[in-house]
């Protein structure tokens, strides 16, 4: 107990955000050093070997010799001395890496990798577009935007302020079901699929996750078209909220850009200080709790 008190006692309080150092603010985590959170710009959900080497070099020269991997696929370089920030940033910029993902802004966009064999629709491209348009933008509070390539939702879209999930319409083949394997029936978690007289039928409980079509190895089921489901108002942190459906089956990538634009604009307009606070503004989920989803239409 005494120990932790010691650790937290700072000579000159400098925990906070260094504003305007670069493309984005930097989170300061101690009196003498900062944590640099690096992400690739323009946004990519991968780091190239050259970028990793740049990080390695910065970590060795200016950091603690270690890198922390964050849940929003940033790489965090801890303990960069205040006097080395400029030098470290210069090296990172040279490799197409930027500090970011801190403070009240649109945090690093999160997308699934397109190489995942389960992806119903690729999301890297649209994620990059959203990042180009809205990435690092100032917001009333932090905003997380996550894209998932399928309903497995690995990138946690349901717990993001804006979560976008690729979905697809399953269609049974004209010839009917070729094998009596029942793979498709056993994977459905929503009781949405049945077999009647050798034909596969989907009912209204279907959530377009495409698990059944992906499970069919005999061409009995296919994906007839893909789109995106948009959820808003999710979060995790001091409390958990799952996002609420805002739009379903958006087929056009550009419409996704419009939707994100609209939701962010409404959020900026309507967010106010939290009750009893003189400095913290509401997160998207709180605005939605107060005004309902209609406030974002």
């Amino acid at each position, binding site marked *: *107990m005494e120990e*932790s*008190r010691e650790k*937290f006692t700072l000579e000159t309080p400098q925990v906070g955000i260094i504003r305007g150092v670069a493309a984005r603010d930097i989170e300061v985590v*101690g009196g003498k050093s900062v944590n640099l959170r690096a992400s690739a710009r323009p946004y990519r959900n991968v*780091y190239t*070997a050259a970028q990793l080497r740049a990080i390695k070099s910065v970590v060795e020269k200016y950091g603690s010799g270690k890198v922390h991997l964050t*849940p929003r696929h940033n790489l965090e370089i801890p303990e960069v001395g205040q006097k080395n920030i400029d030098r470290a940033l210069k090296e990172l910029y040279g490799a197409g890496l930027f500090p970011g993902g801190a403070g009240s802004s649109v945090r690093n966009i999160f997308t699934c990798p397109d190489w995942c*064999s389960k992806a119903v629709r690729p999301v890297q491209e649209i994620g990059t577009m959203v990042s180009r348009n809205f990435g690092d933008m100032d917001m009333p509070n932090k905003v997380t935007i996550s894209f998932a390539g399928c309903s497995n939702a690995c990138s946690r879209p349901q717990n993001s302020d804006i979560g976008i999930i690729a979905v697809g319409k399953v269609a049974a083949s004209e010839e009917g079901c070729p094998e009596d394997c029942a793979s498709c029936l056993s994977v459905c978690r929503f009781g949405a699929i049945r077999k009647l007289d050798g034909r596969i039928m989907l009912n209204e409980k279907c959530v377009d996750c495409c698990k059944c079509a992906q499970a069919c190895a005999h061409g009995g089921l296919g994906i007839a078209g893909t789109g995106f489901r948009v959820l808003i108002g999710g979060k*995790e942190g001091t409390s958990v909220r799952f996002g609420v459906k805002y739009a379903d089956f958006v087929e056009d990538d550009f419409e996704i850009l419009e939707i994100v634009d609209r939701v962010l604009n409404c959020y900026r307009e309507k967010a106010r200080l939290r009750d009893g606070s003189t400095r913290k503004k509401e997160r998207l989920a709180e605005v939605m709790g107060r005004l309902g989803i209609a406030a974002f239409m």
Partner: protein
Amino acid sequence: MDANDVTAGRARGRVALRVGSTGPYSSELTAGQIGAIADIAERYGSGAVHVTPRQTMEIPHIDIAALPDVTTLLAGHGLHIGYAGRRPRNVTACSHWCLYNVAPMRDAALQLNCLLNENENEKMPLPGKTNISLSGCGFSCVRSRTSDVGVIARSEIVITDKKCKKCSLCVKEPLGCQVDAITLAEGAVVIDRQKCVRCGFCSGVCRPGSIMMKSKSFDVFIGGNGGLKPREAFLYRTVPSLREAMELIGSLLEGYRAHAREGERIGDLIERAGMEWPGQKT
């Protein structure tokens, strides 16, 4: 290593490898390890890596034929392949450098990772995918409450009779309470216990010692998950030390092994079989 350790890619004959480390911890790699991963990605993969939501490096597009070579190269840097399929995934923990950490969660995560890997070697796989997430404070940055098992460290704070100097460090930017639970009243500070998430940060900020940390505790949550049907975990038990939290996790995993059907996650098992197996929550 078996099929459970790799993730199928879109390209035939190519797989994605998630990289684990048995020291230091998988979400905290050394410069040397980063360099080795860069080399492997360049030589055997697509020249790029992905950082997964469970805070591990993933090297895509590795030729299956190269797996033995890659495994050897990784092993030379204390790295291994894992965290896919019906297995315990990387145990996530907060950045060790976050000042809010109430306790060293990354050390606990590393220990759990090692323990789970040992069990894997003894061929006692878990029935389903298992996410364990350890958050250093109530802000739950590593998503402890949508994980199969989650821990949140808490710090109990008290207001002492040491006189508040009205410096307002504990209420204003940048050090002030993040959830605005503190107000400065006449002569003393007042903490709104409804709002307070027990991160304990104020006790470190307050130099006269008007706010002090009394004790730590560890909330253990179970039954959460993201994915197809997201579920919020519920508070299962609160224990006074990280060691006890780890022991509790150990026995929870034993119970899960003994009772779950193939593929069932902890939340599914509770939904089907109730709370008898882990024992009622307290």
